[in-house]
């Protein structure tokens, strides 16, 4: 997967976001995200990671600047979004939760069925189609949420600290699942996290952000090859990248203190 020659999928051009309160959540953000990239937005809480992601998804407007979609006919309707919480409808079965995006697009239940079943199989939850969310563990709920993001076959997946609330074992497992899905479906993933280790393990590009005001401070390419598996975590290469990214993150924390 050579990212150097891939076409630009999202062009974030000098984007700022100021909330009604006057707070500048994101300032002068410029990024070109290429098709097929796995990009992590890494930064301390409050640095505008969620805001940036929500602007890309069209869930909140930009104050200045522009976000353009290039490459394939990617419109905002082709976005899969995974929130920090599983965000499932408690009154609906797992099947109906995953069916939701297709139902809203007017796809009949019958036509949707194979696609929903396929998405559930991808996250290993075929047996739980008839269960209700309350019957599932935290990790399983997150898998349902991922299946729902995949069911529309969207090629762009936005994830906002999806595994932050899970235990480490489950998180590692889901990390590997996301990597597998990314490769299998040729996805472009933007993954928000505050974990250095998670960002290095997953992505081929880490965008480090700082707070007050929220901005991009460094953009680090992780050149380690895929597929990556658990043993990647024990390589010196991984340790090196973690050190580099950690340093970049620490600098942002220092400037944050000075600003304060």
């Amino acid at each position: 997967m050579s990212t150097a020659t891939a076409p630009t999928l999202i062009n974030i051009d000098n984007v700022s976001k100021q909330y009604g309160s006057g707070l500048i959540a994101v300032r002068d953000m410029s990024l070109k995200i290429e098709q097929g990239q796995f990009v992590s937005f890494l930064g301390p809480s409050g640095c505008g990671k969620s805001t940036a992601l929500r602007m890309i998804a069209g869930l909140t407007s930009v104050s200045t600047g522009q976000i353009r979609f290039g490459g394939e006919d990617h419109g905002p309707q082709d976005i899969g979004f995974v929130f920090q919480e599983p965000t499932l409808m408690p009154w609906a079965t797992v099947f109906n939760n995953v069916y939701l995006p297709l139902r809203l697009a007017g796809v009949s239940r019958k036509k949707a069925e194979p696609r929903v079943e396929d998405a559930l199989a991808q996250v290993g939850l075929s047996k739980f189609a008839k269960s209700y969310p309350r019957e599932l563990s935290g990790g399983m709920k997150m898998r349902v949420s991922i299946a729902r993001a995949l069911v529309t076959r969207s090629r762009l997946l936005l994830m906002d600290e999806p595994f932050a609330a899970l235990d480490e074992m489950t998180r590692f497992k889901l990390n590997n699942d996301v990597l597998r899905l990314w490769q299998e479906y040729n996805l472009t993933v933007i993954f928000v996290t505050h974990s250095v280790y998670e960002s290095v393990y997953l992505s081929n590009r880490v965008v480090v952000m700082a707070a007050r005001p929220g901005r991009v401070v460094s953009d680090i390419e992780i050149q380690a090859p895929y597929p990556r598996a658990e043993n990647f975590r024990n390589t010196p290469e991984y340790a090196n990248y973690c050190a580099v990214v950690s340093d970049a993150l620490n600098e942002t924390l220092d400037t944050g203190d000075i600003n304060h």
Partner: protein
Amino acid sequence: MTTETPVLNSDQQRHARVDRAMRIVLPVLTIVVALGIWEGLVRYYQVPKYLIPAPSVIAETLVKDGPSLMGSMWFTIKLTLLSLFFATVGGIILGSIFALSRTVEMCFFPFAVILQVTPVVAIAPLILIYVRDTFSALLICAWIVAFFPILSSTVIGLRSADHNLRDLFTLYRATPLQRLRYLLAPSALPYFMAALKIAGGLALIGAVVAEFVAGTAGQSTGLASRILESSFRNEIPRMFAALFLVSVVGIAIFLATSWLSRAVLGNWHESEVRREN
């Protein structure tokens, strides 16, 4: 989980069955014992029936005055259910409008509050003057009492949808109707069911109180009129019999709304899901 075959052994199943049976047997037994003590005390002390009639005397009266009391009970039931129906329809419609527009809510919420806080006994005489038809007047009184909880719960319920889920619906370009059907209405359902349970009881109270205020003027009248009438004539057993029927109506409404709530929320909402310990 749910798809697997049950692994409860027969002992546990029997235990669960006994537990379910006890839920019915215990309260019924308690009531029977209480009635027995009542009967015994009244007979032992030879309390005259114009003071406190024994349960057996009340039962006798129920049978003897059955046809006339049944007619009154039907009147009360009709009044209660109709007012509950209109309260539900009105509460949902107005609640939805309020939930859609803060401006409308700010304009009209005070009226709803005024209706709620003014005792129905105080408004009833006015309504009886302005509305010629007695049944309609009573209906309005009962409606006023039952309406408010449905209104306020519908407003809160419709606004209670999870904000991330709202975003998800925005992301997938849901139409307003889809949003209402698949997100807002289900989110509001637990609030609405809780309000319906309260409103069911209030509708009956409203119906009885309004009829007390109206007096026994009309020819077709409800249980409240029977109670008043019996009180004037000092027919205490008949008062108890009518009172008993009012309670029966109330209990029936309570059971029906509880059953409905369980049927609608039982699969997913914490308030109705039974947990095993």
